[in-house]
């Protein structure tokens, strides 16, 4: 009788990369829905464009590299990159913004480094930074919360704006962003930053319309939704607690110290935690396994460093948000951190 030979172990947990990726994408759903609720369906349109582009780019480059297309495509990593980039850019940004971003993310940041597992940088964040620097206007044109708009925009309007930059009645994005009181609104983080630079206090800045009790109206709920998704990932053991906890802890600590030192020009911890991309970054972006640290100690250092950098850049840097920069900077430090944070192997030291 012919028997099949195999090397041990003969059992497998049935975990797979594609299951992991799908779980992460599922965990994004509450955040995406909240975003859609507060800021319009533009984000869903961006998502669809992103996923289609990502599939095409990934397939094309795999073909160029003479690699099997289907196994790599079906692992879902390209789609996750697409999702993360789509939720990071303004929902009504022109279609070519997301296309350029995805081509760069998949083509350059991921595949040119050797594909999944070999990329040094987080593809979504690499692309985000490229877009932010190349197209600052488009990348900062965030919509105010729907009900603050002078004239609410329909789904069809959003679609045409994304593809033609004007709606059915010929209004441009800039006009549409004008709110009830006739002013153009920046994001809460931007608003606070500008206010402080104009010698206003944070509390004065936060008296404006787009703020609610703790942080930006809408934004705080988006962050809460991503936090929920992140907790699910922890529960499902897709990610480890080290990076999100260290990230959030360091950011909270830094902003708390800043607030105590100068409450006039510094927003508190809650504001920082519930603004911008904090929760998305902490649970979905910094935890990208490929570009993050791999040792437990290393992950704590990695997460905490991102938290500190986010605070520093938000508070003292030129950009309103900082998750992308902080993550990319720490990506570079990963090999070093990993090297110096090897755990103690059983039987080495200690008990000798």
């Amino acid at each position: 009788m012919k028997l099949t030979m195999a090397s041990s172990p003969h059992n497998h947990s049935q975990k797979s990369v594609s299951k992991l990726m799908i779980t992460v994408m599922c965990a994004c759903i509450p955040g995406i829905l909240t975003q859609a609720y507060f800021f319009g369906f533009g984000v869903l349109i961006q998502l669809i464009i992103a996923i289609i582009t990502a599939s095409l780019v990934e397939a094309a480059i795999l073909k160029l590299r003479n690699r099997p297309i289907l196994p790599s495509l079906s692992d879902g990593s390209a789609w996750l990159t697409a999702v993360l980039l789509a939720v990071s850019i303004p929902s009504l940004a022109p279609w070519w913004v997301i296309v350029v971003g995805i081509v760069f993310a998949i083509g350059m940041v991921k595949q040119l480094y050797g594909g999944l597992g070999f990329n040094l940088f987080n593809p979504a964040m690499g692309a985000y930074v490229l877009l932010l620097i190349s197209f600052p206007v488009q990348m900062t044109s965030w919509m105010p919360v729907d009900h603050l708009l002078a004239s609410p925009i329909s789904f069809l309007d959003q679609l045409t704006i994304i593809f033609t930059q004007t709606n059915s009645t010929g209004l441009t994005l800039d006009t549409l962003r004008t709110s009830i009181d006739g002013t153009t609104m920046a994001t809460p983080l931007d608003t606070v930053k500008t206010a402080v630079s104009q010698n206003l206090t944070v509390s004065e800045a936060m008296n404006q319309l787009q703020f609610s009790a703790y942080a930006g109206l809408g934004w705080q709920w988006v962050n809460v939704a991503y936090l929920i998704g992140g907790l699910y990932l922890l529960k499902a053991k897709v990610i480890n607690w080290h990076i999100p906890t260290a990230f959030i802890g360091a950011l909270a600590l830094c902003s708390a110290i800043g607030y105590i030192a100068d409450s006039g020009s510094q927003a508190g911890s809650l504001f920082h935690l519930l603004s911008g991309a904090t929760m998305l970054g902490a649970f979905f972006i910094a935890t990208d396994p490929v570009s993050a640290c791999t040792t437990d100690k290393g992950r704590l250092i990695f997460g905490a460093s991102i938290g500190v950098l986010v605070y520093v850049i938000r508070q003292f840097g030129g950009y309103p948000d900082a998750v992308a920069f902080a993550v990319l900077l720490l990506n570079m430090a990963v090999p070093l951190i990993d090297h110096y944070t090897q755990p103690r192997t059983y039987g080495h030291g200690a008990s000798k």
Partner: protein
Amino acid sequence: MDTLLEQIENGTLWQFPGGVHPPQQKSLSNHAPIARLPLPEKLILPLKQHIGANGQLIVSKGQTVLKGQALTQPSGNWSLPIHAPTSGEITNIAAMPSAHPSALPELSIILTPDGKDTWIPLTENTHIDTLSHQALIDIIHNAGIAGMGGAGFPTYIKADSQRPVEFLVINGVECEPYITADDMLMREHADQIVKGIEVMQQLLTPELILIGIEDNKPHAISAMQQACQHNKKILVKAIPTLYPSGGEKQLIRVLTSKEVPSGGIPADIGVLVQNVGTLFAVSEAVFAGKPLIERVVTVTGNTIKRPQNVWALIGTEIKHLLDSQGFEPVDAQRVVMGGPMMGFTLPSVRIPVVKTTNCILAPDNTELAEPGEEKACIRCSACADVCPQTLLPQQLQWFAKGKEYDKLEDYNLFDCIECGACSYVCPSEIPLVQYYRVAKAEIREQKIEQVNAERAKVRFEARKARLEQEQAERKNRHTRSPSRAAKPAAEKAKVADALSRVAKKQGEQSAVQAAIERAKAKKMADGSLEPDNSEVVLERAKRKEQARNYKAQKQTAEVNSNDNKSAVAAAVARAKAKKAAKVSETNDAGDAPVNPPAHAVATEKETATEEDPRKAAVAAAIARAKAKKAAKVSETNDTGDAPVNPPAHAVATEEEAATEEDPRKAAVAAAIARAKAKKAAKASETNDAGEGLANPPAHAVATEEETATEQDPRKAAVAAAIARAKAKKAAKASETNDASEAPVNPPAHAVATEEEAATEEDPRKAAVAAAIARAKAKKAAKLAQANEAEVNNTDSQPIRGTIEPPIDSIDAEQPATEVDPRKAAIAAAIARAKAKKKAKEQEGNDPS
């Protein structure tokens, strides 16, 4: 804070990092009792079923044996016997596929049962306290018991541990899914297991005995608790179910909080682990007198109709087990020996059950999915999270793929226990364990190659240096002859006269030496210390003639004084060479000692051969002594380092001083030195002492010869003889390996040197000496066992030593003498080859 012992007694358990929870699948096979199988048609009994040496066959083909009869007897270290599992006839003894992942053929006894199952008479014991320690060890040894948990380590070795055992850990964890053999054994035979534990208790006297059982076996736990109620030193510990808590290191950690140091064994921390199955076998052997001939095997998997545990005779083919339990194979059927995590697939069902076989798993393709295709690592570190050894499997995998062996060792690859937890959780289905196995094998192989390469390098460099020196020697000779010619004729004549006298004397002297050397070599060959009278007679005759040349020699003493400086240089060079040899790794024990002398001798030759063959002899003697010493030093620790060098210098200094000043005083000094050396030699008894003293006599010889020959050849001869005898004694006292090496070379050198000297002056005597030398060399050659092929090895300095001097003085020679040196050289080469071989063997025997 409680002490560790109190903490353990209070029920504290510790945790090891990582671990996984694969589906247990134990309920498949743990409902039915352990079944008895019908006798198989044949039994295949591999001679080697454990870690260690084979037993020696004591039965032959066609012989009829009884159940329990020993088929092999232990021989050598860690050797265990095997026994006939039933009565019957030995139908064949041949190599059969083994129960090993490689299934490489292993010599096996094939037994055809006669169906009667007749036991040999058994010696039962009821009270073990009346048995001595050794008696118990012998029973366990002769019953052929090896660790039945998987490793197959001979149990009698562990039971005879010389180190104090604080905790005896009994492994009833059985953390692998599917397997229930230990579980069922504990349920059904808890009493016997506890008896086995008590045998171990008597042997090892541990402070506490801890039985570790996973909490998924409540029946086994209660059975064991009941069975050991009477013994307060035994604690049954239910530990959390977590794979691989049954790993030795992990179980020790869980039960005692201790960690086995990397590369160490549990005994290093006062712990000893025994499997419950092993202890059952111990109890059977000690109380019932039954050797290990059967064991419990779990036959399970979805393709088995009646999965359960069975008593399988050692040697039963897997096919018999499967068929008895109803086996319905599926496509791409896998049959695993062992569990799903660490077991290995069998290439055939015709492989026998051995002492370490605990499970036969025949899964279908849904319960244990076939491995999927390996995908890219996403560095998720799920592997690191589950690693019970806190390794970084993901990093190791990158390094293994990149063949970065240094990095792999930096990341502690060799601490991997190959439990498979990392592969189990890997979402990319990377066969991590397989990568580690390959990498480990490659690293081991590479290390062996490295050692060989290092050896070759040293050899090559020695050869290169030798060739360069040869070149330089030749050059020196050519450049010096014109300067000699330029001297005034009168002075030239005078010098020539003096030189001829010296040469004459030297001829005598070296002839004496040759005689002594011959005697020595002979004695070495005979292995006896009795003096040879014929040699002595010859010596006496020589001495008389030497006395006549005494005066002439005195005058020429100054001629040589200039050369002393070069002798000093040579000594320094030699010391350096020696040091270098020592620095070279201890692995090269056999190698290093062979080479350095090459340098040393080469250096000496350069300076010495041109003018003073005696010096060459002296230098050679020193070099030899040093070689010997180096060999010893490299074998042992470097404790002898410091004292080795100074003598070399000292000799040089003495030579200088002695020759320039009053020869008589020097002679006195030499005599004192000799006396001292003698005393020291006598005082030395241990090997170490012998080593330390191996040098001084050699130096003494050097010093004496230098000073004494100029003044009193007789004294010198006597001194030399004594010194040499001493050196020999020291050599013999030291380990036999060294003895074989060192004494073989020196005569060769000596012969070479002597001939050189002898041929110049007294062809006849030289011829005689050479003839004797040849005879001896021949003898040495005969002793060298068919290893002439190795003659082409590079270190053959004597060829130089002997061939060149004749060129120097070619006009004075007879054709016959020219031939002799060559023969001697060949003999010397053979002798060296032999020495080298010895060195190699010695190295091969080295357990490291």
